[in-house]
């Protein structure tokens, strides 16, 4: 710019003596990159289609629910019920996003470029996991925010708005629970293969194939077996915890029975913690092996 003639000079190679950021920043960069990747940002138009289709659907459903509620003047769906209702879409979102986050890196062989940098082995999978959790939470949380805004603007008085907030918070927490469980399971499955199609199939299989097991267990003659049936599949596991901790948010009308978990609520919570812990441990073990290759 200071060169009036506009000649570009080759100033040769410049050594860098400036700031080098620490582990926290590097982790943050990898995490943000992961969140963007999950939504196809910074990627080709093709990679954006599916994530934004799902986002579009959930937002539209939320808008429709809000519009209908405000028309008929009563709530037709709580925030937590919304998360439950969207669980199928969450599964498909995980099946696309998780392979995009990890399988693709395995496939393209880019991992040696990460692991030859000052990045501890565990940081790579953990940043990816956190990114997927965030993406799922945003996917379920953003529509709830739409519903909240709709509800708040049509509510009469601050008191009603505050009630909406008190309903929204458990809804967001419940969305977080979905996000953690589904991200942990999905990312572990995706990290096992470099083929994205296999990974996506594997994730859908893990989530959907376990549902019949729940079905079988829940019609067994033993009541204990019925009440513990939900443990067999991630979706029903999450629902079980929801029913245990926020029953009034999930089961609103007396005729809607909802899953019967009896007194096994804590068992569901423990199972979820164990499941997530096991998935993270396996994920870390998996990347310790990959890094040494």
């Amino acid at each position, binding site marked *: 710019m200071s060169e009036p003639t506009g000649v570009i000079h080759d100033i040769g190679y410049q050594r*860098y003596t*400036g700031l*080098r950021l620490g582990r926290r920043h590097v982790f943050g*960069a990898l995490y943000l990159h992961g969140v963007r990747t999950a939504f196809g940002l*910074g990627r080709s138009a093709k990679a954006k289609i599916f994530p934004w289709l799902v986002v579009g659907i959930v937002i539209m459903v939320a808008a429709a629910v809000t519009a209908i509620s405000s028309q008929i003047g009563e709530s037709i769906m709580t925030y937590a019920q919304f998360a439950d209702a969207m669980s199928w879409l969450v599964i498909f979102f995980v099946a696309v996003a998780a392979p995009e986050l990890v399988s693709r890196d395995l496939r393209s062989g880019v991992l040696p470029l990460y692991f030859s940098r*000052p990045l*501890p082995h565990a940081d790579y999978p953990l940043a990816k996991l956190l990114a997927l959790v965030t993406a799922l939470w945003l996917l379920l949380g953003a529509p709830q925010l739409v519903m909240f805004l709709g509800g708040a603007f049509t509510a009469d008085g601050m008191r009603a708005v505050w009630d909406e907030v008190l309903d929204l918070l458990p809804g967001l927490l419940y969305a977080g629970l979905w996000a953690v469980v589904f991200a942990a399971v999905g990312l572990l499955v995706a990290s096992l293969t470099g083929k994205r199609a296999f990974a996506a199939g594997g994730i859908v299989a893990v989530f959907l194939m376990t549902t019949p097991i729940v079905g079988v267990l829940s019609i067994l003659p033993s009541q204990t077996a019925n009440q513990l049936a939900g443990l067999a599949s991630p979706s029903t596991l999450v629902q079980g915890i929801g029913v245990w901790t926020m029953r009034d948010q999930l089961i609103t009308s007396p005729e809607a029975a909802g899953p019967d978990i009896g007194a096994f609520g804590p068992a569901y919570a423990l199972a979820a913690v164990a499941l997530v812990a096991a998935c993270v441990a396996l994920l870390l073990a998996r990347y310790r092996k990959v*890094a040494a290759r």
Partner: protein
Amino acid sequence: MTLIATESLTKVYGGGVTALSELTVAVEPGIVGLVGANGAGKSTLIKILLGLLTPTRGRVRVLGLDPTTDPAAVRARVGYMPEHDCLPPDLSAAELVTHLGRISGLPRTVARERASEALRHVGLHEERHRPVGGYSTGMKQRVKLAQALVHDPDLLLLDEPTNGLDPAGRDAMLALVHRIGTEFGISVLVCSHLLGEVERICDTLVAIDGGRLLRADHIAAMTSATDVLAVEVSEGTEALAARLAALDLPVSREGRLLLVPLADQQTYDLIIGAVADLDLPLHRLDQRRHRVAELFARREGSHV
């Protein structure tokens, strides 16, 4: 300071395969050629230097640091170019190198600047914004080199940088590596199974075979006595040999070639003069390549 030093370095893999065996070597900064046949242990050595593999026995130091106890410190100062394909096809070179620069700890804007600088230095300009999937092998190799360079390391570890390149691409890549080693002030360890390539650009040569050290020395020490001119004429080889002998040049024959030790620039003139005097059709006159190879061949039989 010693660039890389190993002491009785041994790596035995789980299956009982010995990849490195009692390797003791110390090299000074500069361009270091690491040569050996496929499976000689070159990649294993690089991974130990990066702290990705733990040696079974022995000690290793890179830039004065120990990669077994402080791998992050070593990796912060080292750039690594792997042998195999490692580029995601749908990212552009600029995006990929910027991202990897950030993973090396560069702040966001610095990473972007240094990424385009690194790509410019390896010879990628406007095409850096296109997806890598559409690049030629030569361009991909350049991107791999640029990502190793983006965080301004003190040492580059290049694993077979000329892999898959055509002869012109090989020459360009070697010239680039030479430039990095001499003008950029960055030490380079170049791995190759092709001795003839590496010896053209490196100061020090380390040859390993079956995980053992064959030889490590300055290239000058290895080649000083062995510079030879090879002369080939389409006819009249005998007459030329006699004429050169008459000029007091110690000629030896090797098939259709006449070999003359290269004393100084005058040797060229004498040979050209002799060929012109005899009016012979000169087929070729060149400095013998693979000089070091012969050196190893003499020591180690059929290896290298």
